[in-house]
């Protein structure tokens, strides 16, 4: 009975539900349910606009609720929301805000389509690539509007992930955010086989990783007798260094490392990032990473601080491996999306290096880094989504992602190329961009904690990574047209309804503002940089 009590924490009167504190999660999930109904009952022609408006409104409302709470955290933080299933602490609020911001920008890119009416998704996901059925669906002008409920479900899972109060809620959130992403990855309009392959790989490996997470939860339950994070944290001090507990925690971390794309659990990243529809890549590269880091932060900072001495060597190993591999393999990539995938791996390593210091500075640095990285990532993939290849007759085809196709883009689409350069500069951590401030924050936290190996590796990797970011700038602006036409034709900016441009502009503005005057935002981040410790 004791166990049941501690798992579910129910009593005779039932659970009190704090609707306001849960609103950010519930609004999005509720909207997702409504969106499913929209799919069923709204006439086909009206579906797309209704879905877009619904999902954008839901994310905006959720984000505003989060912002309201984040501005007055002391009024809202609580570790007993919905029983003990949800822990609303300041750092988690910040993560929710970052997820909502990036999700909103990501949604704009997802909702955009070219002036010819082509969006990034296949007209009929169920059709076999290259079949007659697919052809018919395209000619009929079908639109796959169930993208929007899927994105909303994923966003809802991401909003819940960082505030989960017990391992079970966390696992449910993990699955709620993952399953829609597996589907979304397989829905690309062009190169459908690559997309479906990515989807299947993501699903298989994701299931594998989830199993580790569950397995780890079981070990921890075995060691502590509870799934509740507070109870676990409390028994840590009593149990001390229990091998069962240690292995359990490491297995939980592995599940989360998979989601953030840390080495050696990263191998899905390049394939999935490349195969998924680019707007979805941007969405998941930003939001999944933020949410998964949110969960990782919760586990590391509020559950296991008493084990940090034992965990540090393993965490350091992962951080260093992630930075080095992401950077070194990124150098040899010839595809822009793959290159950004490796860059995402390297960034996960940079964030980890601040995070594993277990200091407030490290927490602030990681949070700030996550926010700015998410925004810039959506912007960067937004630009990639707009660069399409043009064949000999001038027909617009799929996305031009090979580096060769980007040659001389600075002349063909100067504004997009300029914006992309800014995102690359922030990824490289050049001063006056938010990326510099973020890198400075995490590395100074690492040095401040005496983690010289992490800090120095981070600096060296940043220097090497700058090479492949600058190479793209050089290719876009300083190299002539290739002697032999690139396979598939050169890339050029496509004309769309303009939603992507809005997202890119906002992302660019945030990137530059947080790079030039970061102080106020760092203060804001700092004010939310703590967990309610048990």
């Amino acid at each position: 009975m004791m166990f049941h009590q501690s798992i579910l924490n129910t009593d005779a009167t039932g659970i009190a539900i704090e609707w306001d504190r849960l609103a950010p999660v519930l609004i999005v999930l509720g909207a997702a349910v409504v969106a499913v109904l929209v799919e069923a009952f709204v006439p086909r022609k009206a579906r797309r606009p209704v879905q877009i408006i619904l999902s954008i409104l839901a994310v905006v409302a959720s984000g505003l609720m989060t912002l309201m709470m984040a501005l007055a955290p002391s009024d809202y933080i609580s570790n007993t929301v919905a029983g003990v299933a949800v822990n609303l602490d300041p750092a988690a609020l910040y993560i929710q805000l970052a997820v909502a911001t990036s999700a909103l920008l990501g949604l704009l890119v997802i909702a955009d389509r070219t002036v010819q009416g082509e969006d990034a998704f296949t007209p009929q996901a169920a059709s076999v690539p290259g079949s007659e059925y697919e052809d018919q669906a395209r000619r009929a002008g079908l639109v796959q509007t169930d993208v929007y409920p899927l994105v909303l479900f994923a966003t809802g899972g991401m909003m819940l992930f960082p505030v989960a109060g017990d391992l079970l809620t966390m696992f449910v959130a993990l699955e709620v955010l993952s399953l829609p992403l597996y589907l979304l990855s397989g829905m690309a309009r062009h190169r459908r086989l690559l997309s479906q392959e990515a989807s299947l790989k993501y699903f298989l490996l994701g299931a594998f990783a989830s199993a580790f997470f569950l397995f780890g939860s079981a070990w921890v339950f075995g060691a502590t007798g509870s799934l509740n994070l507070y109870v676990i944290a409390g028994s840590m001090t009593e149990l001390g260094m229990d091998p069962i507990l240690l292995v359990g925690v490491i297995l939980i971390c592995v599940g989360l490392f998979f989601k953030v794309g840390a080495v050696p659990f990263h191998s899905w990243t390049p394939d999935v990032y490349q195969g998924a529809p680019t707007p979805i890549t941007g969405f998941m590269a930003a939001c999944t990473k933020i949410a998964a880091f949110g969960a990782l932060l919760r586990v590391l900072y509020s559950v296991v601080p008493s084990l940090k001495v034992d965990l540090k060597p393993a965490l350091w190993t992962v951080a260093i491996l992630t930075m080095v591999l992401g950077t070194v393999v990124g150098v040899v990539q010839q595809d822009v999306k793959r290159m950004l995938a490796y860059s995402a791996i390297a960034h996960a390593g940079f964030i980890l290096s601040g995070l594993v210091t277990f200091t407030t500075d490290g927490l602030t640095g990681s949070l700030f880094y996550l926010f700015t990285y998410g925004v810039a990532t959506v912007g960067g993939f937004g630009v990639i989504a707009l660069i399409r290849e043009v064949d000999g007759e001038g027909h617009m085809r799929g996305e031009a992602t090979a580096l060769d196709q980007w040659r001389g883009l600075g002349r063909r689409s100067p504004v997009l190329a300029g914006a992309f350069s800014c995102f690359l500069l922030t990824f490289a951590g050049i001063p006056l961009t938010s990326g510099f401030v973020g890198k400075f924050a995490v590395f100074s936290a690492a040095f401040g904690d005496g983690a010289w190996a992490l800090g120095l590796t981070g600096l060296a990797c940043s220097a090497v990574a700058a090479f492949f970011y600058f190479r793209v700038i050089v290719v876009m602006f300083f190299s002539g047209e290739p002697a032999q036409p690139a396979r598939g034709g050169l890339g050029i900016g496509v004309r769309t309804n303009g939603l992507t441009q809005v997202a890119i502009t906002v992302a660019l503005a945030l990137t530059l503002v947080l790079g030039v005057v970061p102080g106020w935002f760092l203060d804001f981040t700092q004010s939310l940089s703590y967990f309610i410790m048990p």
Partner: protein
Amino acid sequence: MNGIDLTLLAAAEAPTGVSLMWLVVAIPLASAAILLLAGRAADAWGHILGVAASAAAFVVAAWAFFAMLGRAPAERSFNLGLFDWITGGDFNLQAGLRIDQLSISFVLLVTFVGTLIHIYSVAYMSHDPDRRRFFAYLNLFVAAMLLLVLGNSYLVLFVGWEGVGLASYLLIGFWNQRLDYAVAAKKAFVANRVGDVGMLIAMMVMFAHFHTLTFDGVFEQVQADTASTAVLTAIGLALLLAACGKSAQFPLQSWLGDAMAGPTPVSALIHAATMVTAGVYLVVRSGPIYIHTEGARLAVLIVGAITLLYGAIVGCAKDDMKKALAASTMSQIGYMMLAAGLGPVGAAFAIMHLLTHGFFKAGLFLGAGSVMHAMKDQVDMRRFGGLGTVMKLTWVTMMAGWLAILGIPPFSGFWSKDKIIEEAFVGTGWQPWVFGLVAMLGAGITAFYMSRLFFMVFHGQARWTDDQHPHEAPPLMTVPMAILAIGSVDLGGILCLIGFAKWLEPVTQAAGEAAEAEPVLAVPVITVATLVLVLAGAALAWVKFGAKTAQVPVLPPPANVLVKAAREDLFQDTANDVFLVRPGQAVVKGLTAVDGKVVDGAVRGIGCLVQTVGGGLSRWQTGFVRSYAASMLAGVILLAAIVLAVWL
């Protein structure tokens, strides 16, 4: 003690004229900006705006001057705060102006002579398509020079210091389509940069020891003996290096002759009357430092003495009219430097000589410009002669300048230079004899080479090249020349009569009352001996170059080794080449090689390594889910092993 008084005065209300002094910098600066930004659109009226800006600055300065005159001598010093410039940690610097007897003298000189030269340039540059740009640079120079003398801290001074360097560079290379002119501009800039390093070092040492860069703050602490003599000597020597660069003193003098590549009005204003005297200003302004450091003060004296002889000797051999005048400028600034090194009393005469020199040397240069104007830009004095009859006005104005620089009473140079020579004889031990005799000898040589110049140009037989039709310059040129000539005649006498040295005392004797001392020779003896030497020099020049019987060859005659050396500027360029340029180039070549081979090689090597490793590692990315899952499993085992290893 005076330093404290001055800070108190800062709080006192400055009279209207003085509180508007920021305008004297702002007006020419704004004008320069307008002229540069408006571009060709301003070609039609650019020169008028340029002249008006300079004249307006003079009016404001004169207003401030009269406002100052209305106050007691001790209350004629003002600090005018402008804005908080640098605030960081415990270092706060307010950009401000310091208006006192010394700076107002400079401001009046710069704006008055500057305005005359602006007017002169309207005619002199009338055929140049880039006249507007010329005026923009001139205005920029005026603004920077005024900021230099008005700044209330070394840092503000340094802004002006760099500004005049830039303006000088731009104006020397104004006709940069000619390679040698562009090279001359670069040479001036580089030589100045060497001096600037001295300025920077001085400021850094000051900041390290005094935590302030304002004049008041630094001098107060120098008075209070917070720094050791060694530190003060270091500051003094570094400041002297800065002064040498800007004022073309030994050993950084080589750029001034080449700087004559600029248009003649530039030579008159920047490279004779004002900018090159900035070093003297710096040394006089830093008097409270030099008075506490015998070593640095002696260095100033030695530099001044060497340069005054150096310039005089070089001047004797130059056939290029402007270069002869440049050598003379160098020599005269050597006199000022010598005087500035002599202490508070000498400093007053240094500034007085600076003012009289500003007038007569500017007048001489403008006269030279008038001659060039008449002779199709020719400068070789061997091809002149007999011009006195054709260009009466130029002849008269240059004669005034010539007599002034010779120091013939009652022309203005006599009053200031004679005082310097007298003051050089003051002291004990070997110093008064060496410096006094050098100063006196210099006066004699000056008389020779200046008379040589004057006679070769205006007297003797005409040795013109074919197709020369000399004519008098237009009134826009001759009127400024005439006004400067009037100054050359009487400015010295007037300054002496009104007690200029006394007027400067609050500044020059800020560090305390200077004791009156008698020279080691009786004053009349010195004066008479100097005059005899001067007359002898002039007479020699007359016999060789002026008299009807004198034969001046049109080509430089073969000469002995000493004359050759003088013609080659005493091998200063060769010396620079051997001691500085070539070792410098060798170092640069070495560093380039190291950069190319070692640094680039290392970078390339790392690049290759990363590429190779990356290529190898990317093979791990097989595309097979089974191998991905295997690597994940391996990762889990690895992490579990690490954790358990730590636990064990």
